[in-house]
């Protein structure tokens, strides 16, 4: 295999591994804050118990997010030097702002949030929790600005083959940014909702008697039921916006090989890359009623992304979205009618099965987005092939294999550890009443201080 393909696979593997963890932490940070505030207001121990279990999940997930993120920041240099050489004047400041405003904030206050409970006053601990949540959200903001700019570049001009910024407002608020940001943040909320619902359901299945578990189950299901219709609505807007700016991507999502008008809505098809046709289609004529306009790239030729992966990953994402809607609304209706004391076994099993559905939809969504942009790396500005590093293929292959092994092992370890922690908590091994006041008062002094 040649260097370009291997580097693409390696980048895809690294970012896919990275995104698993931020999708959880971005929204979990805010949920932890919610638990903490609920506890402060109600003095209900169950919120504190929920906080203490989920803050462990947060710490674990965050560590994985950080180390995989460090890998990401080296990727540009080791594998895609053409990227920074061409668009560095735009990407550079955005990445720099992410590091300066977000990474340090979250990294420093995470230490205080995790280990400082008994060392700092209650308000400072709450503040640290807020700042960690703000930090993760800010890092999502900056990186999505950059990513969106790669899809819908704006506010720049090319001089001697290098992009120069002319309007930072236009760069930051580029056409796809608001949609992508909203959609990704909602995706994070859904991912954590289903993770929380799934693990809580699992705990109930293995005999957990704790009230906190029912509380997190209910909170998570309610959140999911609220977010999913919004997500579908936003996803639709996102698609319309993409249609305007990257019609070739939407064409691929829809399985249309030619950009034309009056396209049928294809429910199912087998796209064939060789003949550039679908071998089998089930569709509603003109159902999509998408008026796809040709976009000329100078000489009038439209460069198409590969259709099959985009077509399928789009369907996986939407399919999972629909499943999420059905399950969360059914569960919310059950809880509302019958409370959470008598949840039926099939529903619990269903929720456990959906534990990682957010990951599936998120990855599928990103594959749609990123593969749909090919062959461009920055739409209309820089092709992926032009950015790749001149590293010998065997070298890329060797690092790719090492990364893949590490990632498979760590994903396995992470998932098993989550269930191990849930099982342990279900047995009540973690529960030791600890209130913030007792903590703050008893700063254990150590000899020598």
């Amino acid at each position, binding site marked *: 295999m040649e260097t370009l393909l291997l580097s693409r696979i390696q980048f895809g593997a690294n970012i896919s591994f990275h995104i698993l963890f931020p999708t959880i932490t971005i929204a979990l940070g805010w949920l932890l804050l919610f638990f903490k505030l609920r506890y402060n207001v109600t003095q209900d121990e169950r919120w504190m118990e929920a906080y*203490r279990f989920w803050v*462990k999940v947060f*710490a674990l997930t965050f*560590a*994985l997010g*950080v*180390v*995989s993120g*460090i*890998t990401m*920041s080296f990727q*540009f*240099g*080791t594998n895609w*030097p*053409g990227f*920074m*050489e061409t668009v*560095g*004047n735009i990407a*550079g*400041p955005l*990445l*720099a*702002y992410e*590091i*300066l405003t977000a*990474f*340090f*904030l979250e*990294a*420093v*206050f*995470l*230490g*205080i949030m*995790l*280990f*400082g*409970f*008994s*060392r700092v006053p209650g308000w400072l601990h709450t503040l640290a929790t807020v700042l960690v949540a703000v930090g993760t959200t800010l890092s999502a903001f900056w990186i999505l600005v950059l990513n969106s700019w790669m899809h819908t570049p704006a506010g720049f001009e090319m001089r001697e083959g290098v992009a*120069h*910024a002319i309007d*930072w407002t236009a760069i930051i608020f580029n056409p796809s940014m608001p949609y992508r940001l909203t959609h990704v943040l909602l995706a994070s909320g859904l991912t954590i909702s289903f993770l929380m619902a799934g693990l809580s359901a699992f705990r109930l299945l293995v005999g957990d008697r704790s009230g906190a578990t029912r509380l997190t189950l209910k909170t998570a299901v309610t959140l999911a039921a609220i977010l999913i219709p919004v997500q579908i609505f936003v996803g639709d807007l996102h698609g319309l916006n993409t249609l305007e700016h990257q019609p070739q991507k939407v064409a691929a999502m829809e399985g249309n090989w030619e950009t034309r008008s009056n396209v049928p809505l294809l429910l199912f098809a087998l796209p064939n890359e060789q003949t550039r046709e679908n071998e089998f289609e089930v569709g509603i004529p003109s159902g999509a009623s998408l008026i796809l306009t040709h976009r000329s790239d100078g000489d009038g030729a439209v460069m198409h992304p590969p259709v099959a992966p985009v077509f399928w990953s789009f369907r996986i994402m939407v399919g999972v979205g629909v499943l999420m809607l059905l399950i969360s609304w059914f569960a919310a209706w059950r809880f509302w009618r019958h409370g959470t004391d008598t949840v039926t076994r099939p529903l619990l099993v269903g929720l456990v099965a959906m534990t990682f559905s957010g990951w599936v939809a998120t990855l599928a969504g990103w594959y749609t987005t990123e593969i749909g942009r090919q062959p461009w790396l920055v739409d209309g500005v820089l092709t992926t092939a032009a950015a790749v*590093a001149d*590293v010998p293929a065997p*070298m890329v292959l*060797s690092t790719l294999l*090492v*990364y893949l092994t*590490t990632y498979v092992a*760590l994903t396995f*370890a992470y998932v098993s*550890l989550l269930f*191990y922690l849930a099982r342990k908590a279900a047995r009540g091994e973690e529960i030791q009443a*600890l209130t913030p006041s007792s903590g703050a008062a008893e700063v254990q002094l*150590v000899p*020598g*201080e």
Partner: protein
Amino acid sequence: MGFPTEPDVWLPLVFAGLMGLSILIYVMLDGFDLGVGVLTPLATDADKNRMIASIGPFWDANETWLVLAVGLLLVAFPAAHGTILTALYLPVAIMLVGLILRGVAFEFRAKAPAPNKALWNNAFFVGSLMTSLSQGFMLGVYIMGLSWTPATVAFGLLTAVCTTTGYAFIGACWLIIKTDRDLQRKAVRWANITLLGVLIGFVAISLASPIASPRIFEKWFSFPLILALAPLPIMAAGITALLWWALQHLPDEADRYRHVPFVGACGLFALAFAGLAYSFYPFVVPDQLTLYEAASAPESLAIILMGTLVVMPAIACYTALSYVIFRGKARELTYD
């Protein structure tokens, strides 16, 4: 010679300074927590817990300095960034895997079922060692002008061992501050031994660099340039003497001088770094690309600089806050 007023002259210089500063802060801060990782096999299981507890609240922020340093290289000197990182492709990958292993081991060793704890302790050690060795190796290959020949690789291996020893040394100095009783005495012993290693390393690298690079030889030994350099080895010798003396007397009764070795170690690191910076200026890619040739457009640098000037002091403040909050001796790590 006044301060240059052309933005395309002083901006690259300022960014080179900022990048150098974050590399220096990185090697001091992550240096101590990597060093603690390298030292763990020497300790008992209970001591391991205390050692790792002593770096628990800090390691994430410490590593962020690496992200900042690479980020600045990436944003300020895009041309150099690609050249350096593709030339160091394999050691970078080894370092990243090492960072991943040790970062996750922090969490997994504390949460995994008891039988797996030893496994994650090993992962923590191996990850720290991989990271330290590969960083040292990269330093060596960089000094040798980023070429891969048997001689440069041999030099890289030498710097790999020296850097790891240096990290172990500053790690031991950190432990002297953060631990007490038996473990503190052990840390003093570790610091004593590794200080010796650091000295040997210093001498070896100082001898090898000018031999390997005619340009460095020129800069070090030609008059009057030699005068500019002279204070560095003299100060280093002074600090080393002080460190050696302090380590013979620690731990002291009231534990009043526990900070001395760590501060001294930071001083040594800073001097070594100043020597390197002096030797390489104005090149970012040794003998190939100067920082002026490699810099981004001034408008983009200016935007970043504005942000940096606002945010850096804030970062300094809350970093200091966290060191104040977690001052004192390390206890068992508890998540609360």
